[in-house]
């Protein structure tokens, strides 16, 4: 092996990489927040039998779940141009991630909601609770506990998939790496450091999530 590693340049560019990592976190957090908001509506629409909404929800969920993330990003970046909508790389990746997250999370929410037996509604009604109280104290806490782990996984998935921004020239961690390595030709070094950064980010998120779950659920999962 006659390759000399040059790490100096990578460490010099570390602030820019960290800036990219920040954008990665930023876009994935935002995609989760928006995705959760839309997923709630999709889940309700899918469980409801009001026709047009039902079709939209089912269509959205199935398309999001059955096509590649890269396809969604291309669609947002190149495809929407046909309608005269030109998104920046950031917006393209964000909207693709929101689209997919909403689709996956809607199924998660629906599953979590339907996993709570009907008997509990009836029991709380018979105890004299109002509908709001039933949801607030009985249904939603249990549901949240069941969807917490799938939601964490979806968040990690969003972080990993935001790396596709590299293909549309977005300046998140991967895109930034791509740009910096093309300036210095230290491809291997830069990508090794990026891989390590991704590992640290996902581990950090998972550890935080598990600490938070201990605090939230006090061990009763």
């Amino acid at each position: 092996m006659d390759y000399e590693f040059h790490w100096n340049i990578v460490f010099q560019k570390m602030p820019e990489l960290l800036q990219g990592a920040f954008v990665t976190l930023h876009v994935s957090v935002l995609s989760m927040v928006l995705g959760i908001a839309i997923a709630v509506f999709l889940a309700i629409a899918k469980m409801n039998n009001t026709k047009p909404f039902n079709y939209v929800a089912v269509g959205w969920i199935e398309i999001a779940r059955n096509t590649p993330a890269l396809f969604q990003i291309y669609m947002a970046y190149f495809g929407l141009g046909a309608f005269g909508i030109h998104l920046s790389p950031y917006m393209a990746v964000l909207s693709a991630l929101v689209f997919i997250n909403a689709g996956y999370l809607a199924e998660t929410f629906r599953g979590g909601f339907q996993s709570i037996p009907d008997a509990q509604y009836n029991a709380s009604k018979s105890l004299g609770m109002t509908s709001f109280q039933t949801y607030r104290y009985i249904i939603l806490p249990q549901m949240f506990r069941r969807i917490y782990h799938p939601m964490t996984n979806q968040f990690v998935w969003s972080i990993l998939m935001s790396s596709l921004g590299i293909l549309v020239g977005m300046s998140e961690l991967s895109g930034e790496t791509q740009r910096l390595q093309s300036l210095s030709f230290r491809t291997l070094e830069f990508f090794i450091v990026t891989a390590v950064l991704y590992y640290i980010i996902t581990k950090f998120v998972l550890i935080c999530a598990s600490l938070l779950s201990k605090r939230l659920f006090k061990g009763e999962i």
Partner: protein
Amino acid sequence: MGSLFTPLSWSDTGFILTGVWNTILISGLSIFVGSVLGVIVGFARAESNKYVNFLFGSVLDVLRSVPLIIQLVLFSTFMGVMGSPLPPFVAGTIILSLYTMAFMAEVFRGGFESVNNSMIIAGRSLGMTYWQTIRHVRFPIGLRSVFPAWLGVALSVIKDSALVSVIGYVELLRTSDQLISRTQQPLEILIGVGLFYFLISYPLSVYGRRIERKHAL
């Protein structure tokens, strides 16, 4: 001089079909290799003590926590730097198989661990050897129960195989990318590509859900 951008024509079908074939080829091969490795690693994890498990687990963890695209670029650059550059197909298959293995191993491990230990003990008390209990009890029961999960991972690999285009493998999404830059008709081409993935993935996911429901009952 003719226009630089020529519309999509029937002569492009061959090119698209090459992409379709390459997508099917690389994802099929990776699912196969990944599943075989996944069964082996999953079995090893289910059977071994916690120290070995920790070692296996952390390697698999790295494969799952680094984006596939970074793994692909890293591996193909690494091999190039080492002086033995691999063709995109080989590099892509290796990484995609390992990536598949990382997920499959957990799926199969769960399956093997779900087989009740008393069944194994019953087998042993009937005079079966250790390997016979594995062959006739643990494998058939463990593998059957994880089929829906296996299908889920396999479908995600088909979708993730689109990423192999970054190291230059001409699969479906890359052919469409090239056609888009020539024809400047992104929407039509992309919808076609999306439809292809959807038509493969949707029926299988419906099938998987049905099996899962049958199991649950």
